[in-house]
């Protein structure tokens, strides 16, 4: 990690069509080479944040800077700025059917380098490298819509890998993956981190957070940044996770042991039975779940 600030947000808000709030009063900064997780329950604004960071949406309030430059629609109208930004920042969408729009895997992977106006040989070299790196050579000529969930996720990552971005934005990358593919994805993120890339992952999957991030931003259900800190500290703060709807009172993971289990618990008496005359008085039912 170096000291260059990749993203800096100051009091950022975003509302869909100016009405439906997705983010409010968000201030944060991310340094180059950091591995960061954006935690939040469904609808807390994680995906919106990634789209703001990728210059696809623009803040309705506040300022977002990338590498010191403010991200505005006007800035992206400039081809040179757009080119330089897109070359450095890559977003992998949550829905792979959105990400994979080309008729074949090869074309999907070649799409980004072609937009960068690279020569034919350079495009082919980048695609071949990415195919090898993600071990998907055999998928080269397949149609993306005919792939399995795990294969689609690999191709989605490969389609951004050919950009060779400095910053990865990953939106819920483990969605729909089997345990083996999940493990592979965690390794992939670790490799990118070791290569000095900045990796920002939006997720609500607490089980992968400490493996994919050193620092965590937590968003609550009112679309505010509720907390930020080291991954270990955030995962140990069960009160915070409960408040942000990321953990369950009776079924959660213990930070100290890493074990996930269900706490047995009792409800207060719901009603009493009045026994017939001659009995020993009243007794209360205790229900266990």
């Amino acid at each position, binding site marked *: 990690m170096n000291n260059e600030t990749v993203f800096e947000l100051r009091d950022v808000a975003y509302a869909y069509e100016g009405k439906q709030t997705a983010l409010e009063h968000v201030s944060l900064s991310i340094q180059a080479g950091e591995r960061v997780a954006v935690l939040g329950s469904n609808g807390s604004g994680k995906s919106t944040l990634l789209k703001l960071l990728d210059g696809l949406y623009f803040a309705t309030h506040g300022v977002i800077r990338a590498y010191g430059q403010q991200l505005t629609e006007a800035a992206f109208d400039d081809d040179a700025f757009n080119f330089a930004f897109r070359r450095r920042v890559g977003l992998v*969408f949550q829905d792979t059917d*959105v990400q994979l*729009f080309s008729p074949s895997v090869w074309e999907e992977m070649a799409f980004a380098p*072609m937009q960068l106006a690279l020569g034919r040989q350079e495009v082919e070299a980048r695609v071949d490298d990415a195919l090898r790196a993600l071990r998907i050579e055999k998928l080269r000529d397949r149609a993306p*819509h005919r792939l399995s969930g795990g294969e689609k996720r690999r191709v989605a990552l490969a389609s951004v890998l050919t950009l060779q971005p400095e910053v990865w934005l990953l939106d819920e990358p483990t969605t729909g993956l089997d345990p083996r593919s999940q493990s592979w994805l965690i390794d992939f993120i670790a490799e990118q981190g070791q290569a000095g890339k900045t990796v920002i992952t939006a997720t609500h999957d607490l089980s992968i957070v400490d493996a994919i991030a050193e620092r965590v931003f937590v968003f609550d259900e009112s679309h505010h940044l509720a907390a930020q800190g080291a991954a270990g500290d955030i995962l140990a703060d069960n009160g915070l996770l409960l408040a942000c709807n990321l953990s369950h009172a009776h079924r959660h993971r213990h930070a100290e042991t890493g074990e996930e289990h269900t706490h047995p618990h009792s409800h207060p008496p719901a009603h009493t039975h009045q026994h017939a005359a001659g009995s020993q008085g009243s007794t209360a039912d205790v229900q266990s779940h």
Partner: protein
Amino acid sequence: MTSRAEPALPQPASVRRRNGMVERTLAGISQAMEHALFAEETARRAGLLQALDPRVKVLAMLALLIAVALSRSLAVIAGLYAVTLALAWASAIPLGFFIKRVWLFLPFFTGVIALPALFITPGPPLAQLPLGLAITRAGATTALFLLLRVSTSVSLAALLIFTTPWNDVLKALGVLRVPDAVILIFGMTYRYIYLLLRTANDMFLSRKSRVVGRLSGAEERRMIGASAGVLLGKSLHLSSEVYLAMQSRGYRSHSHTPSVATFVMRRRDWAALFIAALIAAAAIVLGR
């Protein structure tokens, strides 16, 4: 918790009821997907046309289509139809399926147009019908021309689709100077039709699984209308998300999308192109 045993399921009656609109819609969606799958499967088979450069097939199809359109001889057009059948056979396409696929749709689209021509074209009568109607010789010839022209043209297009992966058909359109942006749009349209077909299928199946009893025609129509609305909303959302995904990887409305075609013309491709041009030229000359 106590549980009460549910009564056993009744023996299904062997009464066959007419399929409702939902069933028919589901069957239609499945059939569309099966046809697309079948075309992909035949395109991968080893056969005469599968071995040719897609650009040659596009150009040959175009030349033969022009010949079919210009020819004024029934025998010549019938000869060209026979050529399409021979090519289908040599390309490992089941002939029964190929013929059925083409002729099944003809009565709907061409038959409707050809039918009035039988009666209203002036000329000596061929057969007298009740109500003072008569099929004229000229009318029958006109209808036959139309049916044969359309069936031969559709067969030529079907040959291309059944022997060429869709991606290659799209890339080959480049030889007809179709702009890359248009080819990109065709490719995306084809790709997302699958997704929307699957979504529609899932929506109808989920409805079907929750419907107890029978729905009236009006209820079914309302349900289909509502589903179409939901599907339209989903496709609009999908299209805006896909555009963002393209933008994210550097796409600009004015940027170039260079062709990724890597076709190489071999000797047999040149030979095939020459033969197709020869047949087309002969058909035009003989059919004058």
